[in-house]
């Protein structure tokens, strides 16, 4: 009889055991990372026992939402994909575009089999013919780990698994861009005339980010997929110059102030919650809130892709926001007019408020951008700019 690692049930609902610290902007595997190979994964977590029907039922009955940022219900996507017939594709989207995020790299590097477990269960549930792992070319450590994991399972896979390299940058990780790329087109966002079926007619291209797949993996293993949230606590020395990113798994009821302490970061003046397309919140308003998607929604906030971007005391929030908007504008796929012209105009408007102008222009331009791109890139920029005006504008 083999020895089984005895853990309490909550441990089996978790993705990570300890926080992972990424110094600087790189994504090499942190020293001392607790990485699971196939045998460790199986000894800790067991093997999935659910039939495809049972798995689909479990997804429908869960409150799991997409952790790439948009929080689309996983049940809704799976149902639409199942209705599109067999022969589709399941995509593990590991192309994190947010420079402050590291959680998906952390999962691909240390929990590749849990991520694969979710993708394999989804592939069975929609009778997909292949699984595609979509990762940035530069993410060499993550690519190596996921390739190892695929190799370890080579003899038991009954679905093709292939790796596809994403172009660098932000919008290459956007779901419609991924769908385009999987079908052999350019990795550019595309407009969908039917929101329920972004892949159009024919077999589905079911895209989830790495964390969502890991949580689907928990579900396939009979565990609770939503008892925790993954955060990246992002510290920087200047706008988007990240010096330390700590990937942390919040426990139920944990408050933001406790997460910041656990990451060893000093209390900030404000937080950009959710990343470049997220929302600025004063630290005094956020510190005591629980890290709970539903509780945050009640306060008009979202974890987005889980980024907790700290603004240290002494930095100018409006100047910071203008610099971030410059980056957001530069990351445009340059397909849609409101994005091509509106984002630089918005960055300039915010920069002028940093120099003393009132915020009217920021609000006017923000109001022109929401819902007017093929993807949500301009919507996020508008949301961030408006929250900057609210938190930092006089």
């Amino acid at each position, binding site marked *: 009889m083999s020895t089984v690692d005895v853990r309490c049930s909550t441990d089996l609902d978790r993705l990570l055991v300890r926080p992972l610290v990424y110094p600087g902007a790189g994504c090499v595997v942190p020293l001392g990372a607790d990485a699971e190979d196939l045998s460790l994964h199986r000894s800790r977590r067991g093997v999935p026992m659910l039939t495809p029907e049972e798995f689909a039922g479990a997804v429908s009955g869960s409150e799991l939402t997409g952790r790439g940022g948009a929080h689309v219900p996983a049940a809704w996507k799976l149902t639409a994909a199942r209705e599109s017939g067999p022969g589709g594709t399941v995509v593990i989207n590991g192309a994190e575009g947010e420079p402050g995020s590291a959680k998906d790299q952390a999962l691909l590097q240390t929990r590749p089999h849990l991520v694969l477990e979710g993708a394999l269960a989804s592939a069975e549930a929609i009778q997909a013919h292949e699984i595609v792992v979509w990762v940035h070319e530069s993410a060499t450590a993550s690519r190596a780990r996921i390739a190892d994991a695929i190799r370890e399972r080579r003899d038991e896979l009954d679905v093709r698994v292939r790796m596809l390299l994403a172009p660098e940058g932000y919008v290459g990780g956007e779901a419609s861009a991924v769908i385009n790329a999987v079908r052999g087109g350019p990795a550019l966002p595309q407009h969908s005339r039917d929101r329920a079926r972004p892949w159009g007619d024919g077999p589905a291209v079911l895209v989830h980010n790495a964390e969502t797949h890991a949580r689907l993996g928990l579900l396939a293993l009979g565990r609770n997929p939503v008892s925790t949230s993954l955060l990246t606590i992002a510290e920087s020395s200047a706008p988007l110059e990240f010096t330390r990113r700590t990937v942390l798994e919040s426990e139920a009821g944990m408050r933001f102030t406790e997460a910041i302490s656990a990451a060893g970061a000093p209390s900030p003046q404000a937080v950009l919650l959710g990343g470049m397309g997220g929302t600025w919140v004063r630290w005094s308003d956020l510190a005591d809130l629980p890290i709970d998607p539903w509780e945050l929604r009640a306060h008009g906030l979202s974890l987005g892709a889980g980024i907790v971007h700290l603004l240290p005391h002494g930095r100018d929030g409006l100047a910071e926001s203008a610099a971030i908007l410059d980056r957001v504008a530069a990351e445009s796929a340059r397909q*849609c007019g*409101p994005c091509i012209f509106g984002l630089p105009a918005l960055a300039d408007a915010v920069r002028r408020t940093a120099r003393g102008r009132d915020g009217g222009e920021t609000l006017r331009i923000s109001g*022109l951008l929401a819902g*007017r791109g093929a993807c949500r890139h301009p919507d996020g920029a508008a949301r961030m700019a408006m929250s900057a005006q609210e938190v930092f504008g006089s």
Partner: protein
Amino acid sequence: MRLAIDPAACDGLGMCAHQAPDLIALDPWGYPVISGDEVDGSQADQATRAIRACPRKALYALPG
């Protein structure tokens, strides 16, 4: 019907706003802004002309 735009296909040529001034405005950069509301029966002709006028086929009608 309702009007909808494929923003990636739209090049901001402005033909639609010319054909349907009551339904389509242009933003400061020349790109169309629509309400997304049901098009009133009396304005259906304008909407149809605007859809036909788009050289990029970026403007289209959604049922209902």
